[in-house]
Each structure stands twice: as structure tokens, then as C-alpha cells.
């Protein structure tokens, strides 16, 4: 009787579809990943059960433990326009075009306008040193309310940009509009947060998104009952 012959050697398995899928996923994740720009301060946001995501078009004011205020706005072009507006407002501060371009890609910053030139031109080390200073942060007292001016200029730059893009008022009210987020450390004194909110209030802005981190899942479950 002839025996059934077993194939010799390693069985070959066609891995092509799996590899294809693997690369598809890699490409997807690489393209969708947004790298977090390095932040000048580490802020430990409080936890909440809220599941609202951070809006996409946003003025983000960060307040660290010591109450220093940092500012950011989404959109490179808008940031450039905002800085130009600020320079018009403060004619004694002069920045080169190159500095303005560089500022637009920097991410969150928290320096008084007088030190911005040094900050933007500096390398990582210089910036880190400037951020560590106790008097870092955007001034917001009534005599020197730079934060208010940044918000104003940021808003105006955003609106000009939105008009150029042809958004309607209804769209701006809904999803395309500018939102205001406050990212404060859990250990920040509330009066420091209130001061920032008061600056916004002066500009007739009353709705804020407080940035929080997710609370663990089980706690939310019990809360819903």
C-alpha cells in the first residue's frame, strides 16, 4: 500500500494580506497622529466625568500651579495675523518677519511681549530658562492687560480668517466658531482662574471649556445610576 506522502520542509503561509493590512493601519495612524507640541509647563488637570472633547478651533489659556498664564491659539496663519495685530497695538515692540513666522509654529507661549523676541529667537534651552522664571506668564493686571489684547487680536484674526474661508454666521455659531478653553492645574488657586475668567468676561465671553482628564470608567458608571 502506498503511504500518503507528507510534504517536506516548512509549510509556507501567504502573509501578504496581513502585511498589507498592517501597513494600511500604520499609514492610517501615522497620518492621523497629531504630535503634541512641547508645552512650556506641565499642568496636571483635574479629573471630571465629562466626555466632551476639546473643540478644534480654540483659544487655549493655560494656568499653571503658581498662577502664571500661557496662551495658545489654533491655526498658524491666524497666529501670525494675531501677532501682527499685537505689534500694531504695541508700536515700540519690533519683531522681524522671520521671528513672526517662527512664533506661529511655536505652540503655547507665556511671556510678556517685551521678552517675546528673545523667547522666539532662542533655542530650547533659552526658552526653558525663560519659562522657568517666576515672572514668566502673560501679564493680565488692569494696567498692563496683555492677555486681554491677545484674546482680542486672536479673535479678530480668527474672524478675518473665517470670513476669507466663507463661513456663515450660523456655521460660526455651531461648529466652526472660536471656543475658549481654560486649562488650569488642579492645585491652582481659584482666584487666579477667576482673574483670567474676568478678562474674558470683559470681552463679553462667558462660555468656557475647562480642560479636564477622564475619570476612571467605573466611577462614571455608578454616577449614571
Amino acid at each position: 500500500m502506498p503511504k500518503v506522502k507528507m510534504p517536506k520542509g516548512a509549510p509556507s503561509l501567504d502573509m501578504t494580506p496581513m502585511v498589507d493590512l498592517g501597513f494600511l493601519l500604520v499609514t492610517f495612524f501615522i497620518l492621523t497622529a497629531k504630535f503634541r507640541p512641547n508645552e512650556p509647563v506641565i499642568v496636571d488637570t483635574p479629573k471630571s466625568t465629562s466626555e466632551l472633547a476639546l473643540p478644534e478651533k480654540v483659544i487655549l489659556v493655560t494656568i499653571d500651579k503658581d498662577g502664571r498664564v500661557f496662551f495658545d491659539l489654533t491655526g498658524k496663519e491666524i497666529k501670525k495675523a494675531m501677532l501682527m495685530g499685537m505689534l500694531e497695538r504695541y508700536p515700540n515692540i519690533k519683531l522681524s518677519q522671520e521671528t513672526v513666522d517662527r512664533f506661529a509654529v511655536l505652540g503655547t507661549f507665556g511671556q510678556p511681549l517685551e521678552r517675546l523676541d528673545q523667547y522666539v529667537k532662542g533655542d530650547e534651552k533659552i526658552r526653558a530658562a525663560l519659562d522657568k522664571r517666576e515672572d514668566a506668564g502673560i501679564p493680565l493686571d488692569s494696567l498692563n492687560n496683555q492677555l486681554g489684547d491677545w484674546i482680542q487680536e486672536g479673535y479678530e484674526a480668527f474672524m478675518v480668517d473665517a470670513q476669507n474661508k466663507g463661513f456663515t454666521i450660523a456655521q460660526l455659531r455651531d461648529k466652526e466658531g472660536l471656543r475658549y478653553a481654560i486649562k488650569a492645574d488642579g492645585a491652582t488657586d481659584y482666584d487666579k482662574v477667576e482673574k483670567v475668567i474676568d478678562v474674558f468676561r470683559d470681552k463679553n465671553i462667558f462660555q468656557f471649556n475647562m480642560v479636564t482628564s477622564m475619570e476612571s470608567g467605573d466611577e462614571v458608571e455608578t454616577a449614571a445610576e
Partner: protein
Amino acid sequence: MAEIIQNEGGGGKHQKKRAKKGHVHMDMTPMVDLAFLLLTFFILATSLSKPKTMEIIYPKEVKEDDVKTKVADELATTLLIGEEDEHIFYYSGKFKPDSTVLVQTNFSKDGLRKVLLDKNQRINDQVTILKEKLLNKEINDSTYARAYGKVVNDSLAPFVIVKTIEKSKFRNVVNAIDELNITNVKKRAIIDMGESENIAMRQRIVELGLKK
């Protein structure tokens, strides 16, 4: 794995003699390894950094008197947030320096949440019914949102006033608002603590022997 099958051609007479070509094997294992390494990295890296936000709407300007005149005493609950995490107190109704007793509470499941759920029972029941309807697809999202708004803004809904001092920690304020959201208390205000309440709170802290 990678197999490139050479076309043998028609096998006609005119074909030149070629070097014998079989299947060309290429070892793709390292590439695949790398691909999956990247894949793992990006999957893990993307899901980790998603900040959430909590919406808070501040009124134009709140004065304590405004709140007082608008709210019937029996509907009002006042939450006092002190400096430390343990310094969380509440009282119901109107503040009377001599007789009001501040009750210590916290932001755990059995703390403030229980108190607020109790006070807001009627409204929470209605919200639960609405949610069920939404789940069973009896009503759609926008109807739900409208009905929800109506229910929580009921004229007899409880009102919570959150009072802070300068040194109150931001996380405690966020926690308080979070509890209000969980318990469907939508009538609320955040204002600065008055002097008399601050004094009462300090006394209570000493009485309870809490860390100052």
C-alpha cells in the same frame, strides 16, 4: 512569503537559453516586524492623549443679592469650598450666622452626590424616564435635549450656589461642578464667599479639628 513567479514564456523554439530562474524568495520578516512595531506604537500613542473638557457658562456678573432674590430659600443649597481638599461644607436655605450648621462633605460617591441626588430626586426621575425613551428610540436627540432642558430648569428645581475663597483649589471647584452635572442640577452659580460665611467655615474647621 514573497514569491515572484517568473513567466516561463510560451516555450517556443526561438527562445534563447536563459539562466535557470526559479522562485525568488525574499525574507520579509524584519519589515513586517517593523511595521507591527510602528503600528503598536501609533495605536498606543494616539489613544493616550485625548483631553476632555467641561463646559461652564459664567453669567455676566453675579452679585450675591441677585442670587438671593431669585432663589426661594428652601430650594437653595450653598456649597462652601475652603482651602484644603477636606474643607468642603454645605448648608441648606438661608445663612443665619447663629443657627446655620455647616455640614462637612466630600466629592466621593456617598458625599455631596447623595445629598444632591436626594434634593433633586423628582427631576432625576424625570430625566431617567427621558433617557429611557431616548434609548428605546421613542424620541430623537433634539427632542430629548429640549425636554431635558425644560425638566432641569423647572421653576422648583433646586439651586446650588458654589462659594469659593481666594485659596480654593481649582480641582475642588471642578469637582463640585462635576457633581452638579452628574446630579442634573443645572441651576447654579459660582461666587465669592462672604465674610460671615468665611468666619463660620473657619470656626467649623476648628470645631472638627481639621488641618488648617
